[in-house]
Every structure is written in C-alpha cells, then in structure tokens.
C-alpha cells in the first residue's frame, strides 16, 4: 500500500542507471541522426539483396580512375546519385523504387555535372573524348550472385570542356 501511495524516487532511479552519460549521448545521437558533426552512424544498417555502383568510363567503356580524375570516389558518386534520384521522385510523391529510366538519367546528369566541375585534367588519360556514367547492380539470387547488365545513364562529350 505504501508503495502505491508514494511516487517512486526518480532521482534515485536515475542515479542507479548504468553508464548514464554515455546512454544520454547514445540517445542524443540516435535522435539527432545525421547533422554534422553528429551522426548515428547508420552505415550498412539496412541490408538488401541488391546493391548498385556508379562509375565513369571513356568512349570505349574503359573505366577511368575516379578518385584521381574526378576527386570523387565511386561510393560518393553513388550516394550523390541516390540523393538526386530521391529528390526527383519525391517531387512527384513516388518512392525511390518507382523511379523511371528518365528519372535515373536525370539523376545521372546531375552527378555528371558535379563530376565535370571536379575534373583534374592533368590526370585524365590521353584520347578521352567522351565520358559515360554507368550504374551497375549486383543481386543475390537463388543460384548465387548476379552481375546485372550496366545501365548507361549519361554520355557527355569532353571536347570543348578541357581548359
């Protein structure tokens, strides 16, 4: 009866919580999510049976070293592509999975525009006249891992851009 008539001493309960300051910080980071410098570090928290990459080649589909030439890695380019695609589909109230080929191409063009701004021409291999941006998907299927046919999103002539 006494236990019901008196409110629990919240201060004492709080003082008994293990690792208090750390738990508060964990809660804070969990709620705030991605607001630099704060992060809940959600990398690989959503696992899916497929994953895609974005990469750039020349006119003969020969891969270009993205970090050296575009100061941007393939992983970063992929995140940028997903952000662009997400923004495009959101405007029409659609989910990312319902993006059309035209949406994907538009997102690819936006990524390519950023890449063009970041080109280090001294690292560009000689003879490159066109840049192609591809998306390639890997999928875990019943009989193993499948490499799907790459989808060309953009083909951008390089002539005239070189300063």
């Amino acid at each position, binding site marked *: 009866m006494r236990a019901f008539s008196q409110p629990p001493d919240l201060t004492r309960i709080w003082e008994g919580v293990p*690792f208090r300051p750390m738990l508060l*910080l964990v809660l804070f980071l*969990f709620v705030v999510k991605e607001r*630099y*410098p*704060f992060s*809940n*570090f959600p990398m690989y*928290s959503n*696992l899916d049976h497929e994953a895609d990459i974005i990469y750039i080649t020349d006119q003969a589909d020969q891969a270009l070293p993205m970090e050296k030439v575009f100061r941007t890695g393939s992983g970063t380019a992929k995140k940028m592509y997903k952000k662009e695609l997400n923004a495009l589909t959101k405007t029409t109230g659609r989910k990312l999975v319902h993006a059309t080929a035209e949406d994907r191409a538009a997102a690819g063009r936006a990524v390519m525009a950023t890449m063009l701004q970041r080109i280090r021409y001294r690292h560009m291999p000689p003879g490159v006249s066109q840049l192609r941006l591809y998306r390639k998907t890997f999928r875990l299927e019943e009989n193993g891992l499948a490499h799907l046919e790459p989808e060309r999103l953009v083909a951008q002539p390089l002539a005239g851009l070189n300063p």
Partner: protein
Amino acid sequence: MNPDAATPGRPWWQPGPLDWSRLEMLLMRTAFALLIFSTIRWETGAWTTQKFPNGIAAAFDLTWIARSPPGLGWQAFTVAGLVAYVAGRMPVLGLIPALFFSLVIGTLGNSQGAINHSTQMVTMMLLAQWLVYLIPRGPEAPPSMSHWLKPDFNVQQQVIWWSTLVIAASYVVCGVVKLVNSNGLWLYETPYLAVQLLKTNWCHYHDTLEMPPGWLQSLIQAMTDHPNLARLFFGMGLLIELGGFVILISRRWALVGGLAIIALHLSISQVMNLNFLTHIYAVLIFAVNVPGWLLPRRRP
C-alpha cells in the same frame, strides 16, 4: 595501480575518469592534436556548392570556404592553437580554430549529397573537449580565471574522459541503429552483406583501377553458401559495437575493447576496402593508450 579497478569510489557500471597521469594526458593531447590537424580536409576547392545542406549548412552558406580555402597562414594559426591546447594553456581559445575548420569544412563536405562518416567522431570529440574546457564543473563555483587560462588536473581528466565517452557512444549507437533499422533482423540478414562486399570492392576498382583480390570471390561464395558463417562473423562485429561501452570501465577493459574495435576496423578494411583510419587512431590514443601501459605509475 590495479588496471582491473574501476574509477575509485564508483561501481564498474557507473565509471568516471580513470587515473590518467599528467604525462599520459599530455601524450594523449599531443596525439589527438596531430590527428585533428591531419583530419581537416584543407583542400576545399571541389565543394563550390552545398546542394544538400547538412547540419549548420541548412542555416548558413559555407561555400565561401571553397572559394577561398584556408591557406598556410590559417593552418599555422590552427597549429599554434593546438600547441597551446597540448601545453594546457588557454585551451578554450586554442581549440577554436581547429574546431571551426573541422566543423565548417566537414559540414560543407557532407553537404554535397554524400555523407561520409570518417570525421564525425573525432569532430564530436573535439567539440566535447572544448565544451569541458569552456563550462566549469565541480564544487568550486564561481570558477576562477585560472580554469580557462590553465585548467587543473581534474579538468584535464574530464577532457580525456569525455573523449572516451564519445568513442563509446559512437560505437554503441551504430550497433543500436543496425538493430532498429532492420527491425531486429540485422543478424539474420547479414548474408546479404555478400552483395555489399562485392559493391565496395568494385567501387574501389573504379576509384583506383586496382582489381579486387582473388580471394574475395571465394569469401563471397562462402558467405552465400554458408549463411550462418556470415552471421557468426558479422555477429561478432555487432557485438563489438554494442559492447563499445566497456572501454569506459577500466584500463584493462579499455585495452580489450579498444583492440577489439581496431580488429573490427582492420577486418572491414580487408574485406570491404572501407578504411576508418581516424577512428582507429582515436581508439588507439584514448582506449588502447599504449604509453599508459608502458609508463611507470604511482600507486594511489
């Protein structure tokens, strides 16, 4: 000193600052200052827009720092501030340039549409240290001017303590998010990581034109053929993240937990080509704390 002991006068599950010596803390500050300076990406020229603003970029245009990247003068100014911090003199002022450039450049870099997670933890540690120096804690109120000019031993211990706390919280929240975002199914779904392994290694190929190692295909095949093996392997990683709090308990636990976190990063680096060097160095400095094990310590 007993390395198994928790903070004197406290139970192990409510730890506080460990008994770091002045010399140990000086070495930790020196190593952290070097880490922070090398983490700041001074070459900001590529980030002329902030199309997807993150953090303070939602309120402020930070692209000015891409148009006029901080030159040698600003970098020397930052170094001078860090030297004052290492020496334990006016750290509130000394840390401002490093904190400013870490925050502004890091925020702008993460406002390009791609969030990269390499510098958040050390910038949070820097922010936590600055706040500890700025806001006096403890019984002696109002604080004297010496608190800001030359923080005493207890403040320096709090600074190291909060740095370790940020490391622990970062790993624990990372594990918690995996469980929450997957509705508790993360461990069950880990065989899907085979696709991610393939992805990250092909990303590395397109970054550098170096072919993925031959053994990768065998590993991926083993993961798809034996999903429970993948669950066991990645389950250990999840356990290390969720158990990150152990580095707060005692020196010995900090060593064990710290080495486990470093082993986790090194294995991720091997199989996924994802390198978290700043995390490894931060854990090495504050948790593993090699000098702390080598230096002679006075008994309490």
